[in-house]
């Protein structure tokens, strides 16, 4: 075990996979000379040369398409799209090509492509640069979408994504890059499609992924301390395939669930999870499944409004308290405190 940042874990994993397999190469805007907007690819151009670390023009559709072609011919491209917002420019390549080629052409070509891209917000980047739109890709059969919340999971899922023969959208998060955690020294890939129970509990199931899994763990720990609550936390890790079994098993035990997401509520990932729970654990629910999500507005630029639009720890705590009160627990309410 070594303590690393999420950023460092991604960097080190990319490097070790490039050393392990010479078919692995990187493409993206400003990932070489500039070493990446978020410095994930720092030093890799110098170490591996410009054949394996390709700076591309600002043309997402073009370089994503080129990567799909390379993947079809047997290479293992890892594309960096600077933020998930810009992936919209490559939507047709991802949705209509990467996700469909294997099935549409009877398995003649696989597309072992990884698209690394951060979601997030909270950096005053405005409405067009602060979205969490991984849902668009999780919606598409043929894609895999993974979303680590810790440095260790970042490593294990990136290993799995690079070694997977299907196109994988690898969701990072701006707010997580500097978080630290223990990272195993061994190279054991995660199993894509498997959620992780990061905290066992009996009072309620709290479900999140990426930044919201991180918040879920923090809130559950804080409430264990302050209220003696025993909350089970599930980090989805993978949005497609979705590990429905783990969700259902957990809710059968706890009888209540709160789902957290950083994107918009309506038609969101939380809705899919709530439906999954209703399908698989209806007879075990003692309260309706509640969701916590972002305000249904284009993300404001103003810092005050941006903070207000994002779900906060207090929002999560309030949803937990409402749900627990609905199953007969008596708790004191926390105030809304947005600064």
């Amino acid at each position, binding site marked *: 075990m070594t303590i690393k940042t999420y950023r460092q874990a991604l960097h080190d994993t990319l490097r070790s996979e490039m050393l392990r397999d010479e078919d692995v190469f990187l493409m993206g805007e400003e990932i070489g000379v500039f070493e990446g907007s978020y410095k994930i690819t720092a030093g890799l151009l110098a170490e591996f040369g410009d054949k394996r670390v390709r700076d591309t023009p600002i043309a997402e559709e073009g370089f994503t398409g080129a990567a799909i072609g390379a993947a079809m011919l047997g290479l293992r491209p890892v594309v960096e799209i600077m933020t998930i917002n810009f992936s919209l420019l490559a939507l047709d390549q991802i949705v209509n090509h990467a996700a469909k080629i294997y099935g549409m052409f009877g398995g003649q070509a696989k597309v072992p492509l990884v698209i690394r891209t951060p979601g997030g917000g909270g950096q005053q980047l405005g409405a067009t640069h602060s979205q969490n739109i991984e849902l668009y890709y999780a919606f598409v059969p043929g894609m895999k979408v993974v979303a680590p919340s810790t440095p260790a999971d970042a490593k294990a899922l990136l290993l799995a994504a690079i070694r997977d023969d299907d196109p994988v959208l690898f969701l990072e998060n701006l707010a997580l890059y500097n978080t630290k955690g223990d990272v195993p020294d*061994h190279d*054991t890939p995660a199993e894509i499609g498997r959620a992780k129970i990061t905290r066992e509990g*009996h009072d309620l199931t709290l479900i999140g992924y990426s930044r919201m899994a991180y918040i879920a763990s923090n809130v559950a720990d804080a409430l264990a301390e302050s209220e003696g609550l025993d909350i089970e936390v599930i980090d989805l890790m993978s949005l497609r395939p979705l590990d429905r079994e783990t969700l259902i098993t957990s809710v*059968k*035990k706890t*009888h209540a669930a709160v789902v957290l997401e950083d994107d918009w*509520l309506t038609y969101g990932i939380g809705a899919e999870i*709530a439906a999954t729970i209703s399908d698989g654990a*209806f*007879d*075990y*629910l*003692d*309260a*309706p499944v*509640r*969701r*916590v*999500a972002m*305000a*249904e*507005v284009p993300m404001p630029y103003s810092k005050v409004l941006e903070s*207000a*639009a994002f*779900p906060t720890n207090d*929002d999560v705590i*309030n*949803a937990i308290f*409402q749900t627990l009160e*609905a*199953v*007969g*627990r008596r708790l004191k309410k926390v105030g*809304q405190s947005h600064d």
Partner: protein
Amino acid sequence: MIEIKMPRLSDTMEEGAIASWHKHPGDRVEIGDVLVEIETDKATMDYEAYEAGTLSEILVTEGATVTIGTPIALLDNGESESPAAKTPAASAGTAAPAPAAAVPADAPKPVTTSVAETAPPVAATIPAHVPLDRLREPAHSGGDGRFASPLVRRLAREHNLDLTRVKGSGPGGRIIRADLNGLLAEAPAAALHRSAPRAPVSTGPIVDEKRASQEMTISKVRRVIARRLSESSRTIPHFYVTSVADAHVLMQMRADLNEQADAKGLAKVSVNDLIIRATALALREHPDVNSSYVSDESNVTLVHNRINIGVAVASKHGLVVPVIFDADLKTVNELGVEAKALAELANGKGLSLEQMSGGTFTVSNLGMFGVEEFTAIINPPEGAILAVGATTLEPTVWGDVVVPRYRVRFTLSADHRIIDGALAAQFLRTLTGLIEHPWRIVAVED
């Protein structure tokens, strides 16, 4: 004038009988007053007034049975209009279907989703043809049992509970799991952990309070036991192997040892002390039994070099498992003294956390209760547990004759993820060998 109708008091109710009227024509009625006792297919229940006024006429006399919705009385609320002139939904005001309640616009903080939870439909928006009593969610928290969470309905089905007797304390008067505590005799924690259907625990409708099930507070110890053992039972694939050993020589040896101990003023040696030592020696010979499964994610299992034996103690406060560290390095006398001291501490709640953790294997002995044999649940993160029965005289084939011999049965429960049947059998063979040649148990080695 308000028409009071035969209410639906349970999901299966189709008609009801008037058991007795509590109010008579001319009586003043306040909201919440008991108007009438109604007998349903399940029970006799009080029916309370939802509106205030004066009871003007009783339409259905005591003893008569009518279907749901039939007017049973008239209540004068000061409006002189004759009931016939009003629509069936008279009490709800206008009968014209109103447009659906405006859905709140996107709130600035759309934190939660249960719109219906926070804004129940109001009577004015309900079309006249929908029976009102099916839709009205009482705002007060003491519900009338019409709504129940899916979990409650399942429990009611499985345990044959009569929900019409339960007051709902959830939002809108919904009956929630917590409201069933009085009806479910079983401890709530245990019930929550079960998922498979099981035999009904309800002892039926409560007729005599003295014979009703009682709620007993769950102690912390009991909660820990419940959690750890359900987790063990749920997650560890247990399998069980039973052996029997001839303990005749062991019993003679113990008698000899205790005679000497008596003479020297030392503590007596129990059969359990000998079995603990024998187990420790057998574990040393089969270290893979003295091991732990780490997790599904782990690449390794842990094989322990120290042999720390937990001894299950039925203390006054519940089951505790104090640990005898390095049991293989201690003499039978030392083990006996330590086991006794730990058991005394357990009864006084004086065991420290250190004394209850770090075990690598557990021995549970119910022999003192005359139990012949039983199986135990593994105490995680240990890999196995030994359940020891009573040492009793049994008719035994000895050569060509049947003679009475002391025999003891023990069952190993093992975690099949790390221990296979053959290994368990080899371990038990070693243990049987030690018990049948007991001087090897007490022989001091270098």
